[in-house]
């Protein structure tokens, strides 16, 4: 009998598929993982601490840097929480613009996920196709607010910029374009035998586990729990739109993939409806004072970001700065389950499972 030894493998913080600066200390026996421990904090910038010295409007650009793949939803989280505490009524036009940009951002974020996920699994081309399509969304955002990644678009009480003339038509065109692209993605990926082999039955999460670990977003829905904050705890004007919440059955990676692909379709549906029902005229900004003094109180609101429940917990003492600002970052919650999923898997599955969780390190570390 040969003597074998366990080996500690340090995956990250610089590694091609840790999606940023995640570090995993993995104990492996050959290629089989005995134990894995995520080490985070490499991108911790102390957003919550910084926010205590900033007024509410100044915090918004900081939220852009948290989940940099869907900065719009981050913007919305802080604005929505502040507005809830101030009990502000948001103009119709602003709400529609917010919904359009948030859903477009969801599509963009899922496209990045799809591309990088397949890159993790070893397919190179889908990444570039996804980025080609995402580019169109970024161009739309660029036209709207002059930024491609960190938008700083929303304000407490509305949005900063109104849609430029012709912008909505472009959005409509994009929805049509993206609808036509979806069958191509399915043709390239969904039926690929290797892809199915790599994802079917891998990284299975049970419902009990998912709930206990506080998973949200596609990570929770792939287990069959129909939990989408846009439906279950409606915010903004989501209750006016007709869309489905796709759920999976088994909770494996293949279901996660299908959930996210379906979500793209549903988001496009919402965008289409929002563009149809877009109000003529009206302001994009509620009348708010220059210095926002948020009434004393405490509020927690959760919104559905592409990665799950993005919550914002504000404790205000009536000043223009929050007493305590806490973000419930979906990636942070979702990443916790990783060690439980990795036991007994091999290195190739590590990459697939980690990719399937869809984390953004800017958000995990905050």
């Amino acid at each position: 009998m040969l003597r074998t030894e366990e080996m500690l493998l340090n995956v990250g913080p610089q590694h091609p598929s840790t999606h940023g600066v995640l570090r995993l200390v993995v104990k492996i026996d050959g290629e089989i993982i005995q134990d894995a421990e995520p080490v985070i904090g490499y991108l911790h910038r102390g957003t919550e601490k910084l926010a205590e010295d900033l007024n509410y409007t100044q915090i918004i650009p900081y939220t852009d840097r948290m989940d940099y793949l869907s900065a719009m939803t981050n913007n919305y989280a802080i604005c929505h929480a502040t507005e809830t505490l101030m009990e502000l009524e948001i103009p119709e036009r602003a709400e529609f613009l917010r919904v359009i940009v948030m859903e477009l951002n969801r599509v963009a974020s899922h496209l990045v996920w799809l591309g990088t996920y397949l890159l993790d699994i070893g397919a190179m081309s889908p990444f570039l196709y996804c980025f080609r399509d995402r580019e169109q969304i970024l161009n739309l955002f660029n036209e709207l607010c002059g930024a491609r990644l960190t938008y700083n678009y929303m304000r407490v009480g509305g949005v900063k910029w109104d849609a430029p003339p012709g912008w909505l038509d472009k959005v409509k065109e994009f929805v049509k374009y993206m609808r036509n692209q979806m069958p191509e993605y399915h043709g390239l990926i969904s039926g690929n035998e290797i892809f199915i082999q790599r994802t079917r039955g891998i990284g299975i999460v049970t419902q009990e586990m998912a709930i206990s670990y506080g998973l949200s977003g596609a990570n929770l829905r792939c287990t069959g729990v129909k939990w989408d904050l846009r439906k279950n705890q409606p915010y903004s004007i989501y209750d006016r739109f007709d869309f489905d919440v796709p759920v999976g059955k088994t909770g494996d990676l293949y279901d996660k993939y299908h959930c996210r692909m379906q979500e793209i379709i549903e988001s496009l549906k919402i965008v289409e409806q929002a563009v149809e029902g877009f109000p003529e005229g009206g302001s994009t900004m509620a009348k708010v004072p220059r210095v926002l003094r948020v009434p004393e109180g405490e509020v927690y609101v959760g919104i559905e970001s592409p990665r799950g429940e993005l919550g914002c917990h504000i404790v205000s003492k009536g000043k223009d700065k929050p007493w305590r600002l806490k973000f419930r970052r979906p990636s942070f919650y979702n990443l916790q389950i990783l060690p439980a999923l990795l036991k007994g898997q091999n290195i190739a599955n590590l990459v697939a499972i980690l990719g399937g969780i869809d984390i953004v390190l800017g958000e995990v570390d905050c």
Partner: protein
Amino acid sequence: MDFFVILGPVVLLFIVLGFVTYAIFFERKVIGWIQNRVGPNQVGPWGLLQTVADVLKLLIKEDVIPQKADVSLFKLAPIIAYTPAFAVLAVIPFTESLKFADIAVGLLYYMAVSSITTIGILLGGWASNNKYALLGGMRSAAQMISYEIPLVLSVVGVAMSAGSLNLTEIVKAQQTGVWFVLPQFLGFIVFLIAAIAELSRTPFDLPEAESELVAGYHTEYSGFRFAFFMLAEYTYIFAMASLITLLFFGGWSAPFGLTFIPPLIWFIFKFLFFVFFLFWLRATMPRIRVDQLMEFAWKVLLPLAILNIFLTALFKEIPVLSQFY
């Protein structure tokens, strides 16, 4: 004659280097086109000098050897990896007259010598003293040894049909009948898959799986030593594409009586098709997992290869079919 014996290999070396340079360029271009990009287009006309510039950069790079590496093995590994890759080219006949060593067991020689590269890769992975490199080296060894078996068994059918292990004889056997790709279709499929696995190309690129093992066995290599590994990889593409042309596509022989095109051009044409096929595959496929890779070799390819041998032997005895075998 002496002149050819001495200078021939040198000329071949330069041809191979030229091929590698432009195979890499072509690969980047093809994958670029598949992926909606333009590919390299800055250095030289149409970017033709891109790889030349890359190689030049590798040559003038600092030679880094990790402090805790096994220095002598670390230096030796790229040489062990590259030498057999070039040595196997000796037995490959490009046309009936253009060949270097016309030995009777050419096919066997190819299979035997090409497996030495595995040792180089394993050594490189081990000597680097890097965990990723070690894992890559281990994967590489496991993969190459596993896939060598179906690879060898799948060509047994060809050898039986041709009645020879000499590659020239095998081509000549196809000139009288049909190309072996038709009667030996099962063998061809097994050979093709096993060949891609031997070359460590997508979807079997596990030893250097970037998303998992950073760069696999050559994680710690840079500069000229890294270039040697790359050179070995692409030289094998050259050799394997030549071999598959010879074994299954009739080598230099012209199809449909199109003999006005010279044999060498036919060879190059068939050869390039296979090279293109590899690039095409790389742009399309995800990567298979290591346990699936092993299962596939032992549970699918090996039985199929044996079945192919059995069928070939059987058909050789059936009167009508025997003319094809």
